[in-house]
């Protein structure tokens, strides 16, 4: 990512300076910023970027539009169990992570043993088993990115957020972890921050990425 065109198309593979497209053109208007809560497609089982909802702990896991989406998901499979991954995705979208309590509620909704849901949820790396920061920063350090200096990018993220690997920064904004290949190997280093891909990131780009995210968080507050 060159310094002159910072984040014109954040997370987009074309961010090489040869493009003149806006984020909106690339992602479609409804993919920019916060998604409308009513989202959901007839195709049902898609998952949307994380969106932390303020929810009372005792409230039902899925309510309103989320419940509608959950019910839509159920119609797409020949049996209830197949809705488990999409349901856990949805639970993470609502709560920001998948707690043992969320697992229990999903188990109840799908008539599955709680232990079975626990076994599945812990198999997959994308379910956060504990709360993470507002921004989950996943730096790919696998071979293609590693050849191009991903370790230095990871170090820069840890240094500028003042955290240890896997820990959340004191302001609650950032959790930095290492990721396996994110399938953007031609645009190293690839960093996934929540749902967005930031590509062609060099260590010197890191402060401005974080600055931008901090400003975003402040704007939303």
């Amino acid at each position, binding site marked *: 990512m060159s310094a002159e065109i910072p984040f014109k198309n954040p997370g987009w593979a074309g961010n090489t300076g040869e493009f003149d497209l806006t984020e909106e053109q690339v992602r479609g208007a409804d993919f920019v910023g916060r998604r409308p809560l009513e989202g959901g497609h*007839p195709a049902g089982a898609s998952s949307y970027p994380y969106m932390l909802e303020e929810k009372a702990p005792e409230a039902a896991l899925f309510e309103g539009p989320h419940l509608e989406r959950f019910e839509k998901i159920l119609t797409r499979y020949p049996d209830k169990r197949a809705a488990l991954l999409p349901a856990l995705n949805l639970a993470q979208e609502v709560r920001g992570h998948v707690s043992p309590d969320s697992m229990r509620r999903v188990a109840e909704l799908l008539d599955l043993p709680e232990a079975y849901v626990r076994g599945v949820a812990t198999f997959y790396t994308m379910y956060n088993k504990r709360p993470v920061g507002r921004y989950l920063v996943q730096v790919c350090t*696998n071979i293609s990115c590693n050849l191009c200096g991903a370790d230095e990018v990871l170090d820069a993220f840890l240094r500028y957020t003042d955290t240890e690997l896997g820990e959340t920064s004191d302001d609650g904004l950032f959790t930095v972890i290492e990721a396996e290949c994110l399938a*953007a190997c031609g645009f190293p280093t690839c960093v996934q921050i929540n749902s967005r891909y930031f590509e062609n990131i060099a260590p010197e780009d890191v402060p401005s990425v974080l600055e931008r995210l901090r400003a975003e968080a402040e704007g939303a507050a």
Partner: protein
Amino acid sequence: MAYPYVSDREVRVLSEHFGDPEARTLEGARKRGRYVALKKALGMGPDEVTEVVKASGLRGRGGAGFPTGLKWSFMPKEPTKPHYLCCNADESEPGTFKDRELLRWDPHLVIEGCLIASHAIRATHCYIYCRGEFFEASSVLARAVEDAYEAGLAGKDILGSGVDIDVTVHVGAGAYICGEETGLMNSLEGGRGQPRVKPPFPAAVGAFGMPTTVNNVETLAAVPGILSNGPDWYRQWGTDKSAGTKLFCVSGHVRKPGNYELPLGFPLMDLIDDVCGGVRDGNALKAVIPGGSSVPILSAEECGACTLCYEGVVAAGSMLGCASVIVMDETTDMVKQVRRMAAFYAHESCGQCTPCREGSAWVTKILKRIEDGRGTEEDLDTLLEVTTQMTGTTICVLSDSVAAPVHSSIQKFRDEYLALIRRGERVGAA
């Protein structure tokens, strides 16, 4: 110039509309000829469609290279229960980044391919298993599916043909092993993505216990063109055994990394030196991994005569895999990179089979020991022995995928390991 980098030696069939946002909309896609092949295919019988694809010589683009038409012909001809198609969009092989581009730039091409394939195998439901990290790609795809439903291109009675095919975008949750076809089916069913013992093969007992075919995104994306233009059109590119064009994902130490669509049989060195602008900073080439991190590493000398088709890369001593060309220059610390690859597989092993679960973890530990300067020469023999034991002894080939790069790197770069073990000398260390 368009899409990050293009080359005039490319044959852009699948990647024609990369970088063109209008192609992502249904209207734009139809203007570019999408869904014409679908109409044609629905007017043909399922077996006729399969025969056309068989004649084209299309082979699976997910890594194994199995002939696609032949795979489809294994499905029962008289359906007594529901058939399923799974489109494998769980692209996770390190070095591979073609499917994501197909999904986000030309979602309707993928959907059209899914619908034609579903018709050919008499499937009533197609699940597109998209890896969980692809929020953008799966959102674009889900919207395209929605548009296709609204236009009567998916769902009940497609284009008035009486054929019903549902399409669902299913999103995974981060597990490399779900790219293995039986692991994918277990994951789709709401389980852990652990591969199944074959037989029974998916064409007999697959997803939800029903006959199922699993095809890669790129394979399915090639189908509409073949249906529209005929098998001979497709065979004008490539070699006798490897027909057509292929997306090559080039990453690592080249000046212009990216996706390039080239006819199969393209010389490897032309890809690196001509198409990708050569090795970065004018450095010398050290090694190339031609098919994603799970295939044997080629040394610079072996690259010279290598042509990029299924049989050509095998002749050079490796495998084409999913054509993910990872280029390493002379500054590469081979021990570190091999350890990083092994660590990936140790992390992603599903834990079912002992050789893989234990082997990948111990191989990583031994490599780490060597990397930290605490290795011994016996460690190299141990690694060769362990990786031999890990090959062909497990349910799926993840175990073999750890063994291939480790084994080949020790054979081809033994001196580098020894320099590190004996004198603590590291390549690329400041």
